Every structure is written in C-alpha cells, then in structure tokens.
C-alpha cells in the first residue's frame, strides 16, 4: 500500500510569533520555519508502517512557496521515498489544500493518507476532514494508535470522553494526535540520501484547482496583554469584583 503524507511548512514552534506592523498577518521574514510537528508524527507513522512491511512507499506532499521543498526534504531525510511539491506563492486555505490533495490522491492512488490533526500556525483542523469528504473515504481523526489490518484499519481516537476506536475500510484518511508516536530525528546518512530522492513539482493549475482564498483577512492583532492581578481583602470583595468588574457572575 502506498501512503501519502502531507507536510506543512510552518513557523518553528520555538519562535515567538510577532504580528506585522500593518496588521495584515504575522512576520515571516527571517523567521525560522519547520515542519508542522503533527506532520512529523504522520511521517513517523508512515515510516513505521513501511518498516513493518505494511506500506510499500511513503510519499511526502507539500503545498506552498518554493521553500516548502526544504520541508519535503526533511521528510525525505526522515525516510520518506519521494516528494511532491505544489508551488504556490499566495495564501492557501484548507479547502483549496484539500481539493489539491484530492487531485494528487486521484493520480497517486494511495491506500492511506496520514495528516496532522492540525497545523500549529492557523490551528484550522479542517484539511483531513475536508479531504475525506471530497474523496468519500472513511476518516479516523485525532488518533493516538493505529493498527493496520488487511483492507481495514483500527484507529484509536482521542475524544473528549476518552478513547474511541473506529474500524476504517481502506482507502482511508487518518489525522494524527501527539501521543501516536515520537518522531525520529533525521539521521546524518539519511540527510545525504535525501538529497538524491526525487521531488516532483507542479502548480495548482496542473491539478485543475483554483487556490484563491474564499475568506478575507480584515486584520491580525495580538491578544490583549494580561493585566497584573490584585489581592482582595476577603470573599465579599472577591464576589463584588467578579460581579461588578469582571461581570462573570
């Protein structure tokens, strides 16, 4: 079975994100970018399937600017076999991404697509679900455990009430949660091997998708600064403040 793993280039989780002065977005110039951490977990899950003989090929896909190839290269250095890069310079929303992924799935015919449950930049948590709907495939989201059987997967989902295990007929979509695995490091020999692995480049037009955003961003602002606390004298004053100042009771 072929496994497709979309990987997104995002601001590194260590970077303190700053809003641009003109409020049109966040500062990306000279900011360290890395693979979305949930996508690293997806790559790891796919690689473990390959090592267990459950997957024949792992294909990493990234959509966006030219530097997304670095993110694909990271997946290749972890052990993925080849990459697909859809070059696009503008903003991409989850629906456009899901449509382009569907076009790639139609061409590549994977048995499984493993996505991160969300990206740490916009926290959308939509692409996997949209892709499943567009393809009409079964989906198991927020998984912390994956068992691969013959034509069927058992995916354990982290839901509000605890854990829920669903059986999915393949081909299927799963999205990964933090506890699924601990991603491996790109080892030095694999970094060298990754240089020689192929990355196909294409455009949204090649996939027949118009990636224009459907939403308009009015402005981006920082959250309000947290104000200093005060010490209240007694419970009466606390209740009074909660009722009349904070207006929460």
């Amino acid at each position, binding site marked *: 079975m072929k496994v497709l793993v979309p990987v997104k280039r995002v601001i590194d989780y260590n970077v303190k994100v700053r809003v641009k002065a003109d409020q049109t977005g966040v*500062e990306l110039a000279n900011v360290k970018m890395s693979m979305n951490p949930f996508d690293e977990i997806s790559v790891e899950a796919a690689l473990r399937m390959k090592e267990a003989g459950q997957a024949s090929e792992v294909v990493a896909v990234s959509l966006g600017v030219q530097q997304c190839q670095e993110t694909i290269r990271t997946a290749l250095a972890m052990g993925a076999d080849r990459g697909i890069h859809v070059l696009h310079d503008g903003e991409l929303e989850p629906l456009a991404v899901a449509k382009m992924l569907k076009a790639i799935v139609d061409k590549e015919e994977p048995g499984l697509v493993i996505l991160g449950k969300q990206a740490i930049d916009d926290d959308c948590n939509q692409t996997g679900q949209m892709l499943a709907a567009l393809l009409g495939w079964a989906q198991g989201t927020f998984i912390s455990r994956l068992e691969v059987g013959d034509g069927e997967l058992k995916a354990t989902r982290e839901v509000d009430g605890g854990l829920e295990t669903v059986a999915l007929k393949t081909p299927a979509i799963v999205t990964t949660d933090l506890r699924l695995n601990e991603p491996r*490091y790109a080892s*030095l*020999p694999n*970094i*060298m091997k990754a240089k020689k692995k192929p990355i196909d480049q294409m455009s949204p037009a090649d996939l027949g998708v118009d990636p224009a955003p459907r939403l308009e961003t009015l402005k981006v602002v920082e959250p309000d600064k947290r104000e200093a606390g005060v010490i209240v004298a007694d419970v009466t004053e606390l209740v009074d403040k909660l009722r009349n100042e904070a207006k929460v009771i």
Partner: protein
Amino acid sequence: MVLAPRPEDLDFILHDMLRVEELAEYPRFEEHGRETFEAVLETARRIAEDKFQPHNRAADLAEPKLVDGKVEIIPEIGQAIEAFNQAGFSAAHHDEALGGMQLPWTVVQAAFVHFQAANLSTAAYPFLSIAAANLIRAQGTDAQKARYLGPLLKGRYFGTMVLSEPHAGSSLSDVRTTAKPDGNQGYRLTGSKMWISGGEHEMAENILHLVLARIEGAPAGVKGLSLFLVPRIREDGALNDVRLVGLNHKMGYRGTVNTALAFGDGGDCHGELIGEANEGLAYMFGMMNEARIGVGLGAIMLAYQGYLTSLDYARERPQGRHPGEKDPDAPQVMLIEHADIRRMLLKQKAVAEGGLALGLWLARLVDRHGQDPSERERIEAGLLLDIVTPIIKAFFSDQALAANDAAIQIMGGAGYTRDHPVEQYWRDNRLNPIHEGANGIQAIDLLGRKATMRDGAAFGLLVREIEAETVTARQAPMLEDLSDQLSSALNRVRHVTSVLTSAQLGPMKMLANASEYMEMMGHLVLAWIWLRQASAAVEGLRGEDGGHVGDREDFLKGKLHTCRYVFARELPKISPLADTLEHFDMTTFDMDTEWF
C-alpha cells in the same frame, strides 16, 4: 530552557564570517552545501534539546556510584549517547566508505557545541570516543582499523585517554606504567592510572583505553613513552585485567564518571602497540590538540548557556529603580535596565560569542589543513592551529569561568541556589582550566614553544591574520578607529614577544611570566575575532537585495556594540601585562618558597 548557541549567531558565524559553504569547493565535501549543513545542525539541536539537556541537573545530583563492583550511571546518559550515535554524529566526518558523511570538521564542531551546551558531562563520552577513533584512523594498522574503527564509529565501543598516574599528572615524563612484550606481537601492561574519564561503566559493549606506557628498557622521560590500545574486553571475550580501583568525586562535570584504574594487577593486562614505539606522546598530542580545542569550546558553551540564562533573568526580573528616580512608588525596572548588569552581560557575550567564533574559525583551519590542494595553505593552517590552540584552551576557559561568575552575580541569591542552573555551569566549568593540560602549562607551551617555533613562523602567521583584518575593517568608516587600536595593540604584542624571546634570560626567567603572556595574547585574539565579526556585521547591515536587513538589525548592531565593548574595556588590559613582560618583572619569581 534556552539552549546555546543562538541559531542566528551560529548562522552569522558560519555563513557571514566563515563562509562555510565555500568548503564544498574541496573535493571531499563536494556533495555538501548549505542545505545539508543546516539539516545536520537542526538534528543536533533537536537531539541536544530532547535528549541531552533534560538530564543535565539529574546527572549532577546523582553522580556515578559503585554498586556491587559495577559503575551505576543514570540511564538517561546512555540513552542520550545512543540517540547521538544513531543519528550518525560519531561517524559524521569520516569517509562514506566507513559509514560516515564526509562532513567538514567545521560543521561537525558547530553541531557538537549544541551537545556541549546542553550537557557537557554527557557529551564527554562521545567526545572521547570520537578522539580515540581519530587517533586509531591516523596511527593504527589496517588490522587495528578494521577491528576497532567500525564499532567506535557506530558508538558500540567507547574510547578513553589514559595518561595521568597518581604521582604524575601534568608531568608525563614521570609516567611509570610499563609494557612487556608477550613474545607474540602483543604486550602486557602494568601500572596505576588516575583521572580517567569514562574509564569504567556498563554503557558500551567495550571500552578502548588508549594508554601511555613505557616499554621495558625504553629511554627515560617523554621520549620513552609509547601508546597502547587496551580493551576492557579482549578479543576472545574475556575481561581484560583492568581493575577499577575507585571513583573520584568531583565538584562538577559529574555525569562523566572519573576513575582510578589498575592495569595488570593480575599480570594479565593485554595491550597492543599503536604506531611506533616511543612515539606515544606525539600521537597522544595529535588527539590532545583536538581535545584542547574541544575543551575550549566546551568552556565557551557553558559561558554561552550562562549568558543566555542570566540574560533571560535580567530581562524578566524587576528590581530597583534608576539612580535618578526618587519616587518609591514608581514601578521597579527590570534588572537589565541597570548599567552594571549590562556590563556583566556584555562581558559574557564577548566571551561566549567571541569564543564560539574563534572555535569555529579553528575548526575551519582543521578543514583547510586537511583538504586544501596547496601544500603551503595546509602548512600555514597547521601552524595557525598550533599557536591558537593553547589560547582557546587556556585564555578562554579562564574567561568562560569568569563569565559564569558574572551570570551568578547577575542572578544574585537566586543564581547561588540550585533552583537555577548557573551554579552548576560554574562548577562544571571549573574543570576546564585544569584538564587537558593545565592552563599554566598551556601558557608555557605558548610562550616557550609556539611563539618561537620554526623561527616564529606560527606567530608571524597570526600577526598576518590580524593585520589583514585591520585592513579589511579600515574600509568601513565606523570601524576605522578600532582598526587603528588593534594595529597598535598588535605592535605592542610583537614588541613584547621579540623582547622576551630574544633576551638571554634563560628558560626559568623567560617562562616565569608565561601566564601574563597568555593573557595578553588572549586579549589580542579576542579583540581580533570581534573585529572580524564586526566587519561581517557591517556587511550584513548593508543588507541583501537593496537593503533588506529585516529582523537581523538588532542582532547585528549587538555584534557591533559588543566589539566596541571589547575594544573599550578588554583590549586595554594588554597594556599593564605588556609592561610586566617587557620589564622582566620578577616579583613572583623572586619570592622565596620559605617566605610564604
């Protein structure tokens, strides 16, 4: 927690200052480029953060113990080293045919500093093993390389350096351990060894001790020392006759088990000769030179960790008000607002970032020394390495300790407690002026050998490097005054060196003030490396593509201003040192031992 080095600083040193991508012009590195270098550094940073840094305190609190005759070490140390080896760091600079990546030494060092910053005592184990592998690669027979190199590069075997004895630490000419030919090309060793880091533990399949010993009948002194490979477990699977006598209990650096070992108590310690007989010290020095740069960098990385830790603290800790503020109800300002705190931060930044720049410049010399097609270039790089190695080892380990001291001082009482890491950095760092050749000996080496070697050729090359930088810097109007200042400091140092080396003082008196000479040279080199960074920063501030400096503006201005600090507050220290040296001041020398 923060981890040194700061990525933008490492990037600046490697690319703006050292232009490492040009290393790909050497055939050995032609497969490489900025992309592979960055991927390697990224893996290093992540493993250092995830596997090395978290147990730094735990290893300090639970030093290695002897339990039922076995050394017990917290398991996180072995796990971290395993991750290091699995990622391929022990083999990184070796040939592809050996499973290596043919990575330039500059990049190997740039990666390794992350592990040193995260956890110096855990990093010491692979540090020693890498050095042992380099030595076996350089001096071993084909059979020895075939047997030992593979397991060392994979991290299955660890290596050690076994020089000191209970009665002979710095004084290697007094080494007594003997080796007797066994009549079958092997040797049997007998003797006691002391201060052996990584000398005994259960983390590796085997430990390869590289031991200095004297073949029976060899000449006295260092000319009679040979180098032996003594495995903990022999090829036939039997435990070799290497007995753990005891563990040393150290003030810091505690994760690295330090041992006293007895070789051949039972008369059956098998060893094999490495290279030629009586050449052991030269071989060991091949390993030691690399280790000395590593010790310097380790000290510098602790300075860097202390700098970043105290900087964070100073930015977040409100304390007091500005001297002019009379209103006691005015809000407190952050520590960093106080000029004296900024003084101590600048001192640390100068040592940490300047030291890292110097260490990686040295590593780039190692690549030039090994790979340059021009023989002259290779020789010159080797001479520059010879003269600057004692400086990074001694001057920078002293300065790095002072930097950690400043970090504690900034954090006040908090810095003195075990609730914060800076007291441990200081204790860990206190070893660095001592081991791999005590700093006093480094100073004697610098003045007594390196400054005069080959008719002063190494010294002359260093002068040339510094002069070249003053010329470069003079092209930037804002660096002109600094360029002049460095030129006159250089002239002073040249004068002092020529006075000292030509005066007929005899070795006793000439070397009596070697430490002052070391300090003077250290300040010269510190100023030079900062001027180099300042020139690169000026270039960076011009910006790419028509002036886009972006987020680097503050960073680059910080480089320029730290250079100004070094020239205003550190470089002038040369003057009184030069006075002492030029006038052959013998105050310390003339103190009678009975007058104490």
